[in-house]
């Protein structure tokens, strides 16, 4: 849609490809298609959550409670599944998504109706939601053999050689793309975050936009609650602990502006893939485990600095001569 976005996203794509190529020189197996697909599958949950987080950040809010929402919905679904194994997935899945939605709505309502800053609301609900996981489970794990086989197997089943996890993320990317580019409500999130006053003048309720973003983010976290628990075949209190920062980092690397109003699905996807490649490659290329965290931290810092350079405005340019000279 505009050259600048394109440039930043191409840059990120090039960096990712370069990174993959560099990894391949150390471990050629890494670029085997099956392996890349596995890495993508592994990144699916991050991608889905990053899509939701992007919508929240674009409205000038932030959702620190996503990981806790994942843990809570995941635990509830795992527990319902073990208590009522006869309940079909077709009923269980909507339940989990609805629960995620409700948790998102709570965030959204507090932000919209009480006007509490999103970071404070979600800092609070983050503790509350995770605490609730402990309360409902009494701290106990739900283990693989307690869950039904279909519960664990559904997202693993392949279609066209691609696993359910990946399909869900592809679906979410597509839906987000449509939501953000083709739907009025989605576009309004961008307007609300870009200039709340102007949004208000054009009849957009900024609080309501934030509310909607939180609702979507909660719903996607509900989806991920299931995917997470099914993927690792275990549910416990610390599921996805600290994962919210990864999700936010993915958005930020993908060029989502924390000040609101700027984001793109492609950028956000690339940001998540970037972290996904790092997460998956570091164990493979035999980097000392003690280096992994420092490397991903350094990479985030560098990516963020590089991003702002791309974003920097060239000034107003009043002089004609300067305009000419610029081209």
């Amino acid at each position, binding site marked *: 849609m505009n050259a600048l976005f394109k440039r930043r996203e191409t840059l990120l794509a090039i960096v990712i490809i370069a990174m993959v190529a560099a990894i391949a020189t150390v*471990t050629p*197996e*890494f670029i085997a298609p099956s*392996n890349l697909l*596995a890495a993508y599958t*592994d990144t699916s949950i991050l991608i889905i959550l990053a899509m939701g987080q992007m919508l929240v950040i674009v409205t000038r809010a932030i959702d620190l409670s996503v990981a806790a929402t994942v843990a809570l919905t995941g635990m509830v679904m795992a527990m319902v599944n073990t208590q009522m194994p006869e309940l079909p997935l077709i009923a269980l899945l909507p339940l989990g998504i609805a629960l995620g939605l409700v948790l998102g709505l709570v965030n959204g309502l507090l932000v919209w109706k009480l006007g509490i800053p999103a970071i404070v609301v979600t800092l609070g609900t983050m503790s509350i939601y995770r605490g609730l996981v*402990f309360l409902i*489970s*009494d*701290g*106990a*794990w739900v*283990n*693989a*053999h*307690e869950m039904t086989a279909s519960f664990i197997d559904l997202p*693993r089943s392949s279609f066209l050689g691609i696993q359910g996890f990946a399909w869900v993320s592809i679906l979410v990317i597509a839906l987000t793309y449509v939501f953000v580019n083709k739907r009025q409500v989605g576009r309004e999130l961008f307007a609300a975050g870009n200039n709340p006053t102007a949004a208000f003048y054009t009849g957009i309720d900024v609080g309501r936009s934030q509310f909607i973003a939180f609702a979507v983010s909660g719903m996607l976290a509900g989806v991920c609650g299931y995917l*997470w628990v099914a*993927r*690792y*075949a*275990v549910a*416990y*209190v*610390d*599921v*996805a*602990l600290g994962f919210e920062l990864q999700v936010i980092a993915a958005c930020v690397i993908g060029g989502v502006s924390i000040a609101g109003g700027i984001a793109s699905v492609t950028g956000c996807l690339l940001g998540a893939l970037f972290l996904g490649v790092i*997460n*998956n490659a*570091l*164990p*493979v*290329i*035999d980097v000392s*485990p*003690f280096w992994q965290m420092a490397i991903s931290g350094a990479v985030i810092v560098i990516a963020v600095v590089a991003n702002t350079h791309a974003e920097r405005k060239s000034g107003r340019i009043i002089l004609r001569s300067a305009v000419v000279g610029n081209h």
Partner: protein
Amino acid sequence: DDVRIGLVVKALGIGFFEAAAEGAEEAAKELGGVEVIYTGPTTTTAEGQIEVINSLIAQRVDAIAVSANDTDALVPTLKKAQQRGIKVISWDSGVAVEGRSVHLNPSSNALIGEMNIKLADEAVKATGSSNGQIAILSATPTSTNQNIWIEEMKKVLPNYSNLELVTTVYGDDLADKSYRETQGLLKSYPNLKAIVAPTSVGIVAAAQAVQDAGKIGQVFVTGLGLPSELAGHVDSGAVKSFAIWNPIDLGYAATMISYNLVKGNATATEVSMGRMGSAMLDSDGSAAMAEPFIYNASNVKEFAEIF
């Protein structure tokens, strides 16, 4: 007055420790007049454990039995507890000598190390080849008992010339990280035959990863884990056999030792553990319980009901 014993675990909600708490209750009932306060931090941090221990000190409990997240960091606080007349023992994962009077190892560390390698050997043989590569999946790099066991494993490894230890990776006791590390192992070492995970979180995640990679039969996961958490993976075939000592017995013994210390029924070399017999203390005040018990398809179902 009741004798009050604070049973401090690495973190609440871990199946192993829940089972240990059961054992502690059993001991309390057997003894009579004993109250067990089962507590611990939410995440496995030393700071969290210190907070919990501080509140136990404030409640003037008679004894504290702790499975430590950090050998050294708890020492100053536990010293303070001892100064206030509280008996301190560590169990499962130990505290440096200055911080406690007795440490109860679930088994001797050497034994655990050897057991893990023996299991790995069995696992490799189960793939149908007599020799092959193995890898270790540990918890956090700072985890005390993990590191000791890995040391011990390396000591006995030369006796198993058919096994080649290729690497040690760390899953941080997080399911997703352990899973991803396992995937990494499977990719980096296509000829890997066995993964030894002496951690209950890691072994579960590794088993799942092996199953998801479709490598059941080519790679077996083994190590230390709980029957209740692993029953499914023994079923699936990702795990042939694994070991664990009985956490119920461990909690029971820790409580018995604490009680006897409070009552003054202990000598420098020996303290009674009720139905578990007597703990023989070495010069550091360490004692060891029995050899870990091995579980496989034949018995895992039965024990999964218990812990």
